[in-house]
């Protein structure tokens, strides 16, 4: 199973940079999720790796060998697209064994692989069915089996769960990951859904406007975001702007109202304008314990295991907090609360060049 390395990959369509100098390394047997909003360049990335699209600049290496100019069929990278593209006039069986058939495998091998695949994706009774007779989830599993059975080394998944119902997605996430791991394949899975990425990936690469903003384990990307965009795209964050007073051993930020907030240590020089981001799940609210700021509860939304609380600060800024549902009886709309967070949970960023609102924009 290969390692994949992308170096300085670029692709432009007129003024639009679909890929802007992408650098990425995927380890052998790794399940990597590329996470980003629509239009970030995720599909372009997959198409360049698979060979369907030629980059303007940059190189692609499989196991150290330069594959940039190689033909699609030589790359042994199977692509699973959003729409599955199951060949409509072939049965489930014929679809799954397509890759082997093309390479001229003998009947016995095809039979073997077919049986084990059908078993793996739990479609054993349906090998004679046509794609249009299957439900959405079954189609997805057939497309997956087809890619897995093709003898490819690398699996490229383009939003493979997008077409499914929300509830089904949740069930199939773990199934998909364990299938890939069982077969010890390397997978690059592209998605816009942060929950999906966090649950399925060994590592997550956050992409936006053709550039990779951060690569790390789900925990790293969640706890230590590299930019405000990442902080708000992976989970939701509250942001406070101010002037840096000191940046180590922890950062002190003074807001326009004179309040001093604390965050993790950073390397921003004193006097510079900066932004402090705290995940809403780490933004604690309390009526007893004093905090950095005061705010009024505007609205409480029940979300199952959590309550989503929307608050308005004295200066008119809106923030949110997520608290466990058992606190329901203890807070109500209209309450005045103190807002607090552990300093290690607050990350301070230099003020983004285009302004904060522009930085956080998703579309």
């Amino acid at each position, binding site marked *: 199973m290969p390692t994949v390395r992308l170096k300085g990959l670029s692709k432009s369509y007129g003024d639009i940079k679909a890929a802007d100098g992408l650098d990425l390394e995927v380890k052998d047997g790794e399940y990597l999720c590329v996470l980003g909003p629509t239009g970030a360049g995720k599909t372009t990335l997959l198409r360049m790796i698979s060979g369907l699209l030629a980059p303007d600049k940059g190189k692609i290496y499989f196991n150290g060998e330069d594959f940039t100019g190689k033909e699609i069929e030589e790359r042994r990278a199977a692509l699973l697209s959003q729409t599955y593209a199951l060949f409509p006039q072939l049965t489930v069986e014929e679809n799954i064994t397509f890759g082997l058939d093309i390479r001229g495998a003998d009947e016995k091998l095809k039979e073997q692989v077919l049986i084990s695949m059908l078993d793996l994706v739990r479609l054993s009774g349906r090998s004679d069915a046509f794609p249009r007779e299957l439900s959405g989830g079954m189609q997805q599993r057939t497309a997956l089996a087809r890619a897995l059975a093709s003898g490819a080394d690398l699996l490229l998944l383009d939003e493979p769960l997008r077409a499914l119902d929300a509830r089904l997605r949740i069930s199939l996430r773990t199934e998909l990951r364990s299938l890939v791991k069982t077969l010890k394949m390397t997978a690059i899975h592209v998605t816009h859904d942060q929950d999906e990425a966090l649950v399925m990936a060994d590592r997550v690469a956050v992409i936006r406007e053709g550039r990779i903003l951060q690569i790390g384990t789900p925990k790293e990307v969640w706890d230590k975001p590299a930019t405000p965009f990442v902080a708000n795209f992976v989970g939701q964050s509250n942001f406070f702007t101010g002037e840096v007073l000191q940046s180590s051993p922890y950062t002190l930020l003074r807001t326009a109202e004179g309040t001093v907030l604390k965050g993790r240590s950073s390397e921003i020089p004193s006097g510079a304008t900066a932004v402090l981001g705290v995940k809403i799940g780490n933004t604690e609210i309390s009526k007893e314990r004093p905090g950095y700021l005061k705010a009024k509860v505007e609205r409480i939304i029940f979300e199952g295991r959590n309550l989503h609380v929307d608050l308005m600060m004295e200066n008119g800024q809106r923030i949110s907090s997520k608290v466990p549902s058992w606190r329901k009886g203890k807070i109500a709309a209209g309450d005045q609360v103190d807002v607090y967070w552990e300093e290690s949970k607050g990350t301070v960023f230099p003020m983004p060049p285009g302004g904060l609102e522009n930085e956080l924009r998703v*579309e």
Partner: protein
Amino acid sequence: MMVEVKLVGLGKRYGPVTAVDKVDLTVRDKEYVTILGPSGCGKTTLIRMIAGIIEPTEGQVYIDGKEMTGVPIEDRDIGYVFQNIALFPHLTVKDNVSYGPRAKDLPPEEQARISTRFLEMVKLLDKMEMLPGELCGGEQQKASLARALSSGSKLLLLDEPLSALDSRVRVDLRYELRRLAKELGLTTIHVTHDQEEAQSVSDRIVLMRAGTVVETGTPEELYTRPKRIFTANFIGETNLLEGWVLEINDGVSVIELRNGGKVKVNQADHPLGDAVVISVRPEFVFPADEGMKARVTAITYMGTYWRITANTEDEEEVGFDSATLDENLLTIGKEVYLAVNPKAAVLYPRPEDGVQEAIKLE
């Protein structure tokens, strides 16, 4: 003006296939109701019958007390938002939003006033002169919403309005939907397959499956005390454990699980020896000194907590949450004993066809 929607025995059949099976439902004035369910459960057919786009094969629809049978779409006074947005591609955003007033042949100043008002509400005033194709997904949906609202109707029907959008965009937009609906005092019926979405926006949720209503209740009711196993599994995540009633003391049942463990549940409505299923959500399961035995198979970081998956002796998969991760106690392969919060667990009779059939989605 009060707008109440009442469905009486509403049904739709296509030959041998029953899409909607005699549904009774009342949506009160100014209520925000979500019709939730998996694909094919009939929710879209239902909302289309309310709008008049599909004719029912049986039953009646009452809007504001008036029976709607035979009344064409344009006379029903509704605002409808489509799943695929359906903004008129050849008209600008402004002309799209003013279509409703124009259909009533209102004077041009009035048309402009109405469309400006609603475009402002959804913060799209600066995109007024653009064509739909120039907007991104979230903006298109907001324009579509403004258009539906501009017809002046007090009944808003939303057909999977957010399904085509990115998940991050959905999160922001769903609060907007509810805010607007409440601000304008609308009666809203919102159809979706996404239970998180339903929980965030609804006053009440109507859960459907295979053409019928399974259960209705507030988001909280359906989460903490669902009446059916399907509901328990569909809304939020839950562990479903099979067992038998072993003892009953003072309103507390002791259940012997198939996987060998014993748990207590604060419910006493099942007789001794009955085959039951316990539904308990991951946040109410925790490691303890005694309970069910399980071996840890996966540990996933969920941001503000860890989700640990473990397999019991009966090969059931159980998930539980932990705020912190003590690496000594919880690593892959380690054996733990899991207990359950007796107040949060819910008991159900064991379904005849088995648990898998009861929760099946497609």
